[in-house]
């Protein structure tokens, strides 16, 4: 089993890992000839199945294994990966390699950075502590006009580009194909409504406010502590560009509404049924009062929305009273034609 590659798009990769780690600390990473897939399946809450074409984050890769398509399955902790990627942003180059250290498999990231020369040493302005900036002579009351001048180092550019090589070793577990073959992406029926979400930062700000309101109203009306309250938010959309976020509790009922959103056209070639028979066609025909509604856990929803940091286009697919799936299309900076998707699943 071999895996070796250079990293590219480390900033996007890092954001993806950050979004994943808000849901779960350990991910299953599946590599093969064409794709890199990250899957997180928390005990409760939303799952993420993120599938990226391999050239989106890797370059000059070598992937070899005894499995079909050279599949390699790894289990890896996301926090160390994120920390390692932080070192790699702004680096000259970074590469990833699966190896062993003391018999323990690790994903080793080698990063080359170069740092600009030091500016003025810190602290000088404050107390003039740098001997180089000090007036020579130990007597502070000495006359300045003593003909003695402090020697200062020559400022040169000789060491302008300083390279450092950083190795970040992330502990991993190599998973046997049998242990992962039973883990399948959940099958959800054809969605009733699909709609492009408004900017996630906006949606998240409002959702978080609703969640806090719900916790506050619940905590004041009963003795339950805020930590144990899991408020549900009601999210609905129709096929006429409207999205509704609602919080309905015993004491308050608030709602935010977006309109003029896009309901993208379906690609008939991707469908298993004729487009006329698709549930979304029925929802469209029944007019703007036909809503597909799901209830999401406020805290979990907030974590899911952190995927917004990827700046992707997000399409929400509502299966009425059943499930919500978010497809996040991450822009490919080098090649705008190729879209790579991150799939986020929310079950209601």
């Amino acid at each position: 089993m071999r895996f070796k590659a250079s990293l590219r798009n480390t900033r996007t990769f890092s954001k993806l890992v950050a979004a994943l780690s808000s849901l779960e600390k350990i991910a299953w990473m599946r590599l093969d000839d064409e794709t890199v897939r990250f899957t997180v399946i928390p005990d409760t809450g939303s799952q993420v199945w993120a599938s990226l074409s391999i050239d989106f984050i890797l370059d000059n890769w070598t992937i070899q294994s005894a499995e079909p398509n050279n599949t390699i399955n790894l289990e890896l902790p996301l926090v160390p990966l994120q920390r390692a990627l932080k070192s790699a942003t702004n680096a000259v180059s970074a590469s990833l390699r699966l190896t062993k250290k003391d018999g323990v498999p690790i994903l080793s990231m080698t990063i080359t950075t170069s740092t600009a020369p030091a500016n003025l040493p810190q602290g000088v302005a404050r107390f003039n502590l740098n001997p180089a900036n000090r007036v020579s002579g130990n007597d502070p009351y000495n006359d300045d006009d003593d003909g003695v001048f402090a020697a200062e180092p020559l400022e040169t550019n000789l060491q302008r580009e300083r390279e450092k090589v950083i190795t970040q070793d992330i502990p991993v577990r190599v998973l046997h194909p049998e242990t992962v073959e039973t883990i399948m992406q959940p099958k959800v029926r054809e969605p009733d409504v699909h709609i492009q979400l408004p900017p996630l930062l906006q949606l998240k700000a409002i959702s978080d406010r609703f969640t806090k309101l719900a916790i506050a109203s619940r905590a004041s009306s009963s003795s339950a502590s805020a930590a144990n309250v899991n408020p549900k938010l009601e999210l609905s959309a129709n096929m006429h560009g409207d999205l509704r976020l609602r919080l309905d509790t015993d004491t308050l009922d608030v709602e935010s509404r977006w309109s003029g959103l896009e309901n993208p056209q379906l690609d008939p070639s991707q469908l298993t049924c004729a487009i006329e028979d698709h549930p979304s066609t029925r929802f469209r025909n029944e007019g703007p009062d036909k809503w597909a509604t799901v209830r999401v856990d406020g805290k979990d929803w907030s974590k899911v929305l952190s995927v917004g940091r990827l700046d992707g286009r997000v399409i929400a697919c509502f299966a009425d009273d059943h499930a919500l799936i978010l497809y996040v299309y991450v822009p490919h900076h080098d090649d705008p034609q190729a879209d790579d998707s991150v799939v986020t699943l929310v079950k209601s």
Partner: protein
Amino acid sequence: MAVLRFTLSEDGVAVLRDALACLGKFSDEVSLEAKKDRLVLTALNTSKSAYASVAFATNRFFSKYHYAGVAQNRDKFFCKLYNRALLSLFRSRGGDPLHDRERDTTIDRCDVVITDEAGKKSRFIAKIIFRNGITAKYRLPFEVSPPVHAKFDKTEAVNNWSTSPRTLRQLMDHFGPGIDYLDIHAEDDVVNFTCFTEKAANGDEVLKKPLQTSVAVAQDEFNSFHVGEENLHIVISVKDFRAIIQHAAVLGADVLANYSIPARPMQLKYDGDGIKCEFLLMTVGERGAPGPKNKKTRANVKGATGPQLEETVTRADSHAPTPAPPVAPKTSQSRSNPIPSLRPPIERPSQRPPPATLESESLFVPQDNDEGWEPVNIDEGGEEEENARLGWDTTGDLNASALNMRTMMSNQPSAPQPTINNDLDLTQLEPTQRLSQVRKFGLFGD
């Protein structure tokens, strides 16, 4: 009459605060030693694996400085203070220098007077004068006890390097959380800084292991670099190292490291204007073995769980408000004893000069009182300062290789549980003031 009085400028207060913050990362207590020409603050950590000292040149650092001395000991005065209290009174009081109005609340200067006289309350009195005309006066109790100084034999430290704190800070930036040790190893033209932990991880825990980071820095990034021995791995505590370079970075002073071989102390020092900082860190490591495998590590680093097996001292708070006996002479007897030093015992006979021991290990306990060498009671930790007591834990097998953490860990179950030393109880004196009494003044933060 005051033993010591000095005045600090606004900048002086800031520098003192930075120094105290750095020392506070080693110990809760700070020892102050005043002489005519210099004022030294020192701290020794509880496992005695790290010693920190900051010396101020009195003529350069203070606006005014007057040392009068005490009757018993003319040439120097020493006391021990609670660092958190000092930090909180010298803390920076808001104030944005860009806004004139807020600047009013910043410290203008600070007058400190230490009084220690029979019939009078011994106090460390700090008067802080703010820009806006308000004067705050703080009285802190202190304990007169001689400081413990660690010594460093510079002649044996054949390896040394010097670099800017910026370089060191840049490499620390790459280290993640959860690491304990830092391995420094030179190879060809690069210097490798590798951090790691020895916390065992088994089974599913493997993924909980921290990120292991190694940074290779070109030797020419150092001002100087002289390490003669090949494959010398020197390992120190990351936490201590981080505290030091943070402070060095604030001073903007180049850091000089001197060391010899693993299990001998490493000296890190840097100087500012009128201030000299020196740190001695216990090292472990390995010689002559390529690669950082099979690393041997001392068991006794702060943060290590379980009872500590090497010489251990609880909070160095001996509850002795009376002037302590003059510094005990370094007797030959103290040399022949298993001396608690900054150095974990090593099995190979050393051809080097006598070890750099602490000035006197008998500073904490009455001399010739073998009871003082009894293990410390760890169960007593509940009451913290109130009940802190001193004692040495010598139950660890001093002849065994204490360098190997695993060996130490396997010794653990057989190590007898420490017992309370009742004799020490009898000799104990009440503190000058109870912490609970002082707390209400809000000096101790939380």
